């Protein structure tokens, strides 16, 4: 038995589709995704919701799962994500190689950081296995793997000293920004595109804000006031993005990462705008569902909610397939010279396949008798 559509699954489904579109460079529809109206983007939402889901898994349904079970489950999830990352990376490499052969074009072997795999396979395969070599646009799952490993520690801290979790996370975040701590790539010299030491703040915020007590409860009590504060921030973020009002990063004081908008380090400007957006849109799902009950639009909106929630419920499968579809979309754009027509076909087919993937994943469950643990398992 699958769970009913809820806000977390709905927004996660939204994020998955957005990421799929954003990961096809030059796509016509990429001009209309969240990143074009907001400082933060779907990746922030995805990680924040992962933290929120972690809380639901650990304490969902009014019962607290034993600490040992939560830690083991989080570690198992990290392993599952790692396996998924290795699999989609190998498939992506094979896709690039196949396309290169079929189109007789060696440039495709250079796409998305794949050149090292073909040029210097010995160390690069070690890098692929250790996640220190990541293909372009295949760099979210490595972040997620590290975050899940870190989450096992976060859960322990939370169970032992709940009031210390957020301060510990903020301290790590600020240290990462102040001293530019990050993870290196290898064998190619560089750094991870998503710095886990900074991005962990979003996971922890999702985790603590989902809690019914503590800061989560405080936020719920003051949500109206917070929305009033958050709205101008969201509007300002919109104006900065649309009218290119970014501050000159060379003019801000040191440490500069505290004052600039940087995705790698999930800097405060980005983080604050994201939290403001979540605050403002926290009621949106309720209104969308209410809107979907109106007679005129029910036939369209209700299935749309159900579809997005289904994508969100099966986020790992859908994300993996979506990543490969994005790469396919890049190849299609290259082959058909990237017209609006071919872009439309790519988006429609891509989303359809993502939906089919989610449906297929749930078909196994539908065939199975309901189990009490089912709803909490997929986080």
């Amino acid at each position, binding site marked *: 038995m699958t769970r009913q559509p809820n806000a977390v699954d709905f927004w996660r489904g939204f994020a998955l589709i957005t990421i799929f579109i954003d990961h096809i*460079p*030059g796509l016509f529809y990429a001009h209309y995704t969240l990143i074009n109206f907001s400082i933060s983007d779907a990746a922030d939402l995805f990680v924040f919701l992962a933290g929120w889901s972690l809380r639901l898994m650990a304490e969902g349904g009014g019962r607290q799962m034993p600490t040992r079970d939560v830690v083991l489950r989080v570690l198992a999830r990290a392993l599952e994500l790692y396996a998924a990352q290795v699999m989609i990376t190998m498939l992506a490499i094979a896709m690039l190689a196949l396309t290169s052969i079929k*189109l*007789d*074009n*060696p*440039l495709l*072997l*250079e*796409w*998305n*950081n*794949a*050149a*090292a795999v*073909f*040029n*210097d396979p010995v*160390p*690069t395969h070690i890098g692929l296995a250790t996640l220190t070599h990541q*293909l*372009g*646009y295949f760099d979210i799952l490595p972040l997620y793997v590290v975050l899940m490993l870190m989450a096992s520690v976060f859960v322990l801290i939370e169970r032992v000293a709940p009031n210390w979790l957020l301060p510990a996370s903020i301290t790590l975040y600020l240290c990462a920004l102040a001293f*530019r701590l990050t993870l290196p*790539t290898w*064998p*190619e*010299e*560089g*750094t991870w*595109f998503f710095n886990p030491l900074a991005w962990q703040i979003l996971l922890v915020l999702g985790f603590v804000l989902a809690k019914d007590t503590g800061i989560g409860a405080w936020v719920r009590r003051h949500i109206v006031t917070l929305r009033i504060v958050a709205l101008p921030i969201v509007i300002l973020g919109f104006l900065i993005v649309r009218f290119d009002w*970014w501050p*000159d*990063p*060379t003019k*801000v004081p040191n440490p*500069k*990462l505290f004052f*600039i*908008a*940087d*995705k790698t380090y999930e800097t405060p400007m980005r983080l604050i705008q994201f939290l403001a957006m979540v605050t403002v849109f926290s009621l949106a799902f309720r209104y969308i569902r209410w809107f979907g009950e109106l007679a005129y639009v029910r036939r369209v909106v209700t299935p749309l909610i159900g579809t997005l929630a289904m994508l969100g419920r099966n986020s790992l499968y859908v994300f993996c397939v979506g990543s490969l579809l994005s790469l396919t979309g*890049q190849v299609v*754009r*290259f082959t058909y*010279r*990237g017209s609006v027509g071919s872009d439309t076909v790519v988006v429609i087919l891509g989303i359809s396949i993502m939906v089919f993937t989610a449906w297929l994943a749930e078909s196994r469950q539908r065939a199975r008798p309901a189990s009490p643990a089912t709803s909490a398992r997929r986080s």
Partner: protein
Amino acid sequence: MARAQTPPPAAGVSPAPGATTSPLSKACQTGTDATANESPLPNVAAALAQRKNLRILAFGAAPGRVSARRGGYTALIEAMLSHALEGIGVVMVNRGVSGELAANAAIRMKNEVALEEPDLVLWQVGTNDALAFVPVDEFVATVKDQIGWLKSHKVDVVLVGLQFATQMVREPHYIDIRESLRRLAAQENVIVVRFFEAMQIINNASASVTGPASDEIEHNEAGYNCLAQYVARAITLGVFAKNMPRQPAPQPQPQPQK
């Protein structure tokens, strides 16, 4: 746009003997004349005079690109420049993201310039935009704005043009992006290492001797080795531009399709 004034070569800094005249390996010499327009690097020259070190921020498709011989092409550039610019410490910072379009790179580059405070940005640009069929006007506007921003922040830039593949020689959009980059570089008086054209000449020369390259990867590998040499040469020429004679660049002949 007014041509930037070239400051005198940095006091106490001189090219190593023969460094600017012939730093190229024999295999790469064929493509030399299609590689770069010689424009000055005033901020690099000033930095060398003041600090005796050179910070280069590498951006674009393949800055950290490794090779079977290790080190990657930016490491090669670093080593060559250290050799060519005697007494100068050269630091290369790689911040490229593979597959990134110029528009996205431009946003990130501003942050990295603020954080790393480079004297020079080495920007390999155009390949991803050409492959993603980004409109030429959009591409030009992005790169032009970015060059303007870098100039206004006293950071020199060396552009590295599009990657080479025989299959792209007659691809109209690829040609448009290549040509627009060349024109823009001339208009803005910045160095562009015309990687595609250089590799095309080398490719034609090697094909006439040994037949079509059978191993594309090995060929590409050699190309990046040459690229490192061209970039190092372009930078040393940019620093000491006044003294260097300029030769007319030959036009590469289109190679027949396989």
